[in-house]
């Protein structure tokens, strides 16, 4: 009897734990669910005195309205995609190349380089805001996709190098030696050995870089805010909120929905890499 009583106690304990965790998870998710559901509500339901959670009737009207009337939204979206993807590709290529050099070669100035990268990571990025603005302005790179891509690449470079250096160090030296014997140049062994073996590390670093570029706010606000042509999604959505909040919340709900859903789906698909990249990033940074 004692055993079953113990079992019952344990089961209620687990049940209670699940219940509490379910409530906490619900708190984490409900704001997003609320936005998704609200974006599907017709206009009069959104503005009724009684706030509803589940829509009484569903409509896609808000979305068609949004795509028709919010001219900037599509542009912001395109810009964010181009800048984020550009940053990921450039950072991974340049960063992994440098990581390869730092992991596999001893050369003069190696220590100094390492210290410079590390030291700059300690300084908050916001400190460079003013200098960056001046720099981009003098090269006519303000309000261009190139300018922001280069900025984000530079920001994420140090972290990528640290992550990839750790990955590359674990590649066995014998492989490289064997390739060398077969007449591979260092460049070829980078392409043919390091990149394939470091693929999962690259994916982890890549997701981290993508996230930081996609979500970045203050530099995008400062550098790319003169026209719709180069504005990114976080800055644009904030602008749209200011313009539309007195006119139509439904349209806003649908635009906000479209700006968070792809990232969440991407996260759910690439979860493993996200977690790895983020924990590595936190520990290093």
């Amino acid at each position: 009897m004692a055993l079953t009583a113990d079992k019952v106690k344990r089961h209620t304990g687990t049940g209670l734990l699940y219940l509490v965790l379910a409530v906490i998870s619900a708190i984490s998710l409900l704001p997003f669910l609320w936005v998704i559901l609200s974006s599907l509500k017709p206009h009069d339901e959104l503005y009724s005195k009684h706030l509803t959670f589940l829509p009484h009737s569903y409509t896609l009207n808000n979305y068609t309205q949004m795509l028709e009337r919010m001219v900037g939204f599509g542009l912001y979206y395109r810009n964010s995609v181009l800048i984020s993807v550009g940053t990921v590709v450039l950072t991974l290529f340049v960063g992994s190349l440098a990581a390869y050099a730092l992991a596999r070669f001893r050369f003069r100035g190696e220590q100094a380089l390492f210290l410079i990268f590390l030291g700059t990571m300690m300084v908050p990025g916001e400190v460079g805001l003013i200098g960056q603005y001046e720099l981009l302005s003098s090269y006519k790179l303000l309000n261009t996709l190139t300018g922001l891509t280069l900025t984000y690449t530079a920001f994420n470079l140090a972290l990528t190098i640290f992550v990839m250096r750790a990955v590359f160090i674990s590649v066995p030296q014998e492989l490289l030696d064997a390739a060398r014997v077969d007449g591979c140049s260092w460049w070829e062994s980078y392409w043919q050995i390091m990149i394939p073996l470091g693929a999962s590390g690259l994916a982890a670093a890549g997701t981290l870089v993508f996230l930081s570029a996609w979500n970045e706010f203050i530099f995008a606000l400062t550098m790319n805010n003169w026209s719709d042509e180069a504005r990114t999604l976080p800055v644009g959505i904030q602008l749209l909120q200011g313009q539309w909040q007195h006119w139509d919340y439904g349209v806003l709900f649908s635009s906000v929905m479209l700006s968070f859903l792809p990232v969440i789906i991407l996260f759910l698909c690439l979860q493993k890499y996200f977690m790895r990249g983020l924990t590595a990033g936190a520990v290093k940074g």
Partner: protein
Amino acid sequence: MGDLPAQSTNRKRRGWSLDSPYAFILPALVLFGMFSLYPILRSLYLSFFDYDFLRPEQMHWVGWGNYQEILRDERVTNWPGLVTPKAILPLRSLASYALGLYALVALTYLFTRRAGRAFAIALAAVVCAFLSLFCYRLLGHAAVAASLLDALRLAIWPITYPIAALWLTINSAGGAFWNTVRFTVMYVPLAIGLPLLVAVMVDKAGRLSTLFRTLNFIPVVVSVAVISIIWMWIYHPEYGVANTLLRQAGVKETYNWLSDPKLAMPGIVAMCVWHGLGFNMLLFLVGLQRISPELHEAALVDGATGWQAFRGITLPLLKPTIFLVGLLAMIGALKVFGQMFIMTGGGPGDSTLSMVLYLYNIAFRYGKFRFGYASALAWALAAFIFIVSVIAFRLSKERE
């Protein structure tokens, strides 16, 4: 064949070649130097000049002038005095008494490391205070001890007063520096405590632990801009979820969450705690997984309760993680910008003006482009962050 590898690795390359470590590191170095290192150093240089970006010809050296101006600038250094004790007299709630008693016990425990003795001392303090007040009453000071509750309140007054005064002080607005500090002071304990609690539960959830981890992590991947907009709707005085829920719970008052100087900062803090929960939880989960489960089980077998095992084993072993989470949360909080920029613009008044928001406004918003002064603000903040981090590191090392 035997000497071929040696030959190939010893092959000395003279002059420039694309197949060398220098060539591999060059692109990174150029990009990093130009777009990361240079702007930071350029900001440092500019911070010693009076420099308006639109009038470069008037740029001139002022030495430490900009830094001295920071100290004189009321919008940065305005500091609220300690809020008067009158403000806590109306706080006759049980909660404040409980908090005071708890603090007394906690302090005693801290100094004696004995739970039993701590309780005995606290109890003795309360009884003594009550007895002395009772004597006063016999001697005619009737007003002093009108009731048992008042006596109790007076007994724990030395503890409740600082706590309540501190809380009220933290909650009152000042200049940008003070607002940044009070945001950090409110945010960091919550950003450690709540995620730790959730992480311990998720860690125990067995097969479902991955699921709960994922669900709670979702807000982390969404940008500050989108989160801020969603929470502006939640805080909307008329249509917002927060007030609707309160109304359904029977609260008559309508709260203007973001336009009330008392509520705006706590409102933003609540949002940030919610937003950062998943990330800090993940760090704690990583820390928890490093602790071997045998230790915990052994303690349980030896008859420790779950709480004792947590206090005695999990918490001490988790200290490095707690430090890491606290440090990251603190650095992030001191740099807070987007939330205030989007939700309140620093208002109402200057009650949510943060350091980064102020320097952004100085550089780009107030009609002038005062790049020199803004750079000085940025570097002063960086120096403050650095100093606080170093102190935190020292303290954590001393403890061990």
